[in-house]
């Protein structure tokens, strides 16, 4: 026996003794106090000495003995508190939140300043499909030198090193945005865009990547004709360079594709005239519950460098939001996309200007830019419903295909996908969206601020 006892560490005895003592000591103090003949008498009770003794009239506090109802804290309270892993997490969360909350409040205060006429604003956003999230800074002046001229210059770099630097100037010619003269310039670097050759049935294993750098200058007129109708006529000069993707494990598009068959393989200079017409009746720009969007774009593009490049582009987008019920909490959201590029007089269309379907802005269940061709069509249906004041949930289905010409579209050529979506209404107008989509190539996950659909 003594041999066995000797094997037990001394501190174990100590712990056990402490536990046993605390187990006895944790009982209510009243358990041991005040039994008849042993306890201190309650002076008030003794003084009452009434024949009829109501139970529930307590004596006044100052007339009562100073005792506790328990003798100590619950058994092992501190020990349990300290060893509980959630206590550590609690401390961590507390510290983080203290820092974050101060930051949020400071940003909120700064946000109010943003509502002022000029200033600087930090923001989080993406730089287009597949770019990943990034942080940026925006310089703005809504009334430059008191002339009414608006200047907006966002600069954004994402964690994938996609870069987007833009400066836009809007000179009002007629009040209330009836007519503006626009001037703008953009530098856009996309480090690794997908390319799968051209066609509706390209193999997933044929993926290649390329980098594009675009420098653009544009000017023109935009008009807010009515509350819902907008139009624009712009001229744009673009210098697009195509190179190999940096640090990319996939094969370079330039290495993999027969250079002779790929127009615009080393980039191009394009001069474009763009006409747009938009009818926007959505009740909220990002999370509408009713209304819709009709958008038409026609552009003529002429190549200045990079080969015989000349083509027309026609784009059509329709969105409709159908509320189901009176509360506006259940919505059927429908979207149709159509695009076709038509070469002009036997000229060519640079490959990076072809219709590319797939990704967060077009068809979520496809890999980013999964299918390329001159024309493409996509249909999306989404059932959105509110699951909490700030959360929406959605189920969606998608069908899309690309083809050389619109006449080549066929009912059996569609690629299908489906998914679920979780939307957080971070503010009444700014949603964050998590999309989990499944298509022919597997699952895709997206996280977006202010999704366009």
């Amino acid at each position: 026996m003594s041999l066995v006892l000797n094997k037990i560490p001394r501190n174990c005895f100590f712990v056990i003794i402490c536990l046993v003592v605390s187990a006895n000591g944790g009982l209510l103090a009243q358990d041991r106090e005040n039994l008849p003949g042993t306890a201190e008498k309650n002076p008030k009770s003794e003084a009452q000495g009434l024949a009829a003794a109501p139970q529930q009239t307590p004596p006044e506090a100052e007339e009562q003995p100073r005792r506790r109802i328990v003798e100590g804290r619950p058994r092992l309270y501190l020990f349990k508190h300290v060893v509980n892993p959630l206590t550590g997490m609690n401390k961590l969360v507390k510290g983080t939140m203290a820092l974050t909350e101060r930051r949020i409040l400071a940003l909120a205060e700064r946000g109010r300043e943003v509502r002022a006429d000029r200033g600087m604003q930090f923001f989080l956003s993406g730089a287009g499909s597949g770019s990943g999230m990034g942080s940026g800074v925006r310089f703005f002046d809504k009334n430059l030198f008191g002339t009414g001229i608006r200047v907006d210059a966002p600069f954004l770099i994402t964690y994938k090193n996609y870069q987007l630097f833009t400066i836009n100037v809007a000179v009002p010619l007629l009040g209330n945005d009836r007519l503006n003269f626009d001037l703008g310039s953009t530098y856009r670097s996309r480090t690794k865009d997908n390319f799968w050759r051209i066609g509706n049935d390209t193999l997933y294993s044929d993926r290649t990547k390329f980098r594009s750098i675009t420098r653009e200058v544009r000017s023109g007129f935009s008009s807010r004709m009515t509350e819902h109708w907008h139009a624009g006529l712009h001229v744009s000069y673009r210098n697009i360079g195509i190179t190999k993707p940096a640090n990319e494990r996939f094969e370079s598009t330039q290495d993999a594709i027969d250079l002779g068959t790929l127009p615009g393989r080393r980039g191009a200079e394009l001069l474009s005239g763009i006409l747009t017409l938009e009818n926007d009746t959505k009740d909220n720009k990002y999370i509408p519950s009713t209304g819709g969007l009709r958008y038409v774009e026609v552009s003529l593009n002429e190549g200045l460098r990079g080969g015989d490049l000349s083509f027309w582009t026609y784009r059509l987008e329709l969105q409709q939001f159908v509320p189901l019920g009176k509360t506006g909490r259940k919505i059927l959201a429908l979207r149709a996309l159509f695009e076709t590029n038509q070469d002009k007089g036997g000229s060519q269309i640079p490959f990076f200007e072809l219709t590319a379907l797939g990704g967060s802005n077009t068809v979520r269940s496809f890999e980013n830019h999964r299918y390329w061709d001159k024309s493409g069509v996509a249909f999306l249906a989404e059932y959105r419903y509110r699951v909490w004041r700030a959360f929406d949930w959605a189920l969606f289905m998608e069908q899309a295909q690309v083809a050389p010409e619109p006449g080549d579209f066929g009912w059996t050529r569609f690629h299908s996908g489906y998914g679920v979506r979780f939307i957080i209404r971070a503010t009444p107008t700014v949603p964050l969206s998590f999309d989990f989509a499944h298509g022919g190539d597997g699952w895709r996950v997206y996280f977006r601020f202010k999704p366009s659909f």
Partner: protein
Amino acid sequence: MVRHAVMPALILLALLPAVRGVEKLSIHPLWLDFDMENIKEPKERKISYYYSFFKAQFIEQAKQGLDMPRWFRAAIGKNKRASNINAVDEVPDSSWFTNRHHLRRMSIEALVRGPDRKETPDFGEGSVITRAKTEGVTLGLQIKDKHGVTYIIKFDDGKHAELQSGAEMVVTKILHAAGYNVPENYIAYFRPEHLKIGDKVMKGTAKPRPFEQKDLEDLLYSVAQMPDGSYRVLASKFLSGKPKGPFPQIGIRLDDPNDLIPHEHRRELRGLRVIASWLNHWDMKEDNALDMYVEEDGRKFLRHYLIDFGSSLGGGLSPWEYFHGRELAMDGANTMKEIFSLGFYETPDERKGDFISPAMGIFSNAEFDAEGWTPSFPVMAFENMTDEDALWGTRIILSFTEPELRAIIATAKYTNPADAEYLLKTLLARRQMIARHWLRKVNPLVEFSTELGEKGGVLRFKDLMVEHGLAGANSAEYVYEIRYKDRTMEKKSTRNPWIELSSSLPPAQNGTRKIEDPREDILEVTIQTVRAQTERDPVTVRLYNDRTQNRLRVIGVWRG
């Protein structure tokens, strides 16, 4: 091998509280839990809104999820008993709670006065703005009145005049009478032209600048104004002592040596759920409480206050929001129901209430659910509430008579008498619904008292169901059993609210008798209430036959 046995032994010992013995009874129930010993000044406990929300919503819920004894108790349908109840099933006075109206009847004047110790503030000419809060959800000022007393000023929203100020006033008085520590709140009026802006008043926190007259005008632009141009406000007097932050809703404040009982197991916090449901006091987040380091009788200790009741009754910044009191602000269960029903499950968030008036909002007794009432933020003490805790809370709200409630409501100074009348009727109706629900779940016998005469003893009690018109006078049969020494008498029954003990008791003696074994003088009566073929858990009343004093005293009440 022994070493291997140490860990299981430790675990078993840790689980011991789950099977800990029941409280023994004493002949002198403890009516003061003296947690007011002198302590070292604790640090201020700072807690942010988001942190308190996250903690209550996720961390503490997870902690409770890991509490095995709690699962065990849940499996057998018995929550842990509150830890601070005395032998007669009451809450002793402490730095948290003082037994007031339900045990020590207060006059109407005392109820109306509530916690107030001062005259109504006078914000006439000479009053000075000492601080301004122009950001955040609620706007406010601090004003030093003509008598030099500083008050926190809260406004009513311009579209809902008298809503929040009225609610805060009524609830302050009721919670005070119920026994809680609350601030002195007053309905007051001021004219902006009478106010002077103090030299050190700043606007903004990131880039502070002096608060100016224009800022005051901006602030007052969106708040309610009286027809005569004055502003009706809720003026809350600073609590005495040093603020030390809110008390944690769960666990113990470790820097307070007086704090021995985990707060989620304090009956006054558990039973507050019933009172809060009556008053629709849904905004029970942690920072709506405050510990004050006070000095009383030469001792310095923490006194625990409830504060901010502007979101009670129909109040709140968004008084049209129907979900308050009906689901959590972030209700995971309802969210999942929505997800899996494809949005066809209708949560309270989707519904709308009838708007009564600007001063009442949508406060009503329609669709009120006493059991299902939910604060907007999780409160562990509420989740731990037992039926006995609920009975305690129900007894408190039933202790107010209609005239008393009318007098309390009058302190809110509603301009339209119809609002006051509506509030009274709604509170009475909600109270009946609460009583009907909770009293049916327990044995509703309370207020046990005894008589001991020459013929023997009589145990009297009140049946709350009968007292409050929820059951007929003779609707129940009280089946009782008397135990004395080792003998258990034959079960008997009565329809009267008293039990004759004559034949069970030993003869009374003069005060000269020396007590040999005091347990010989203890008698237990177990009463089962049978009403409409349903039996409630019995209540056992322990009586002490004090032959030295020729008295029969109730020394214990045990339910269940």
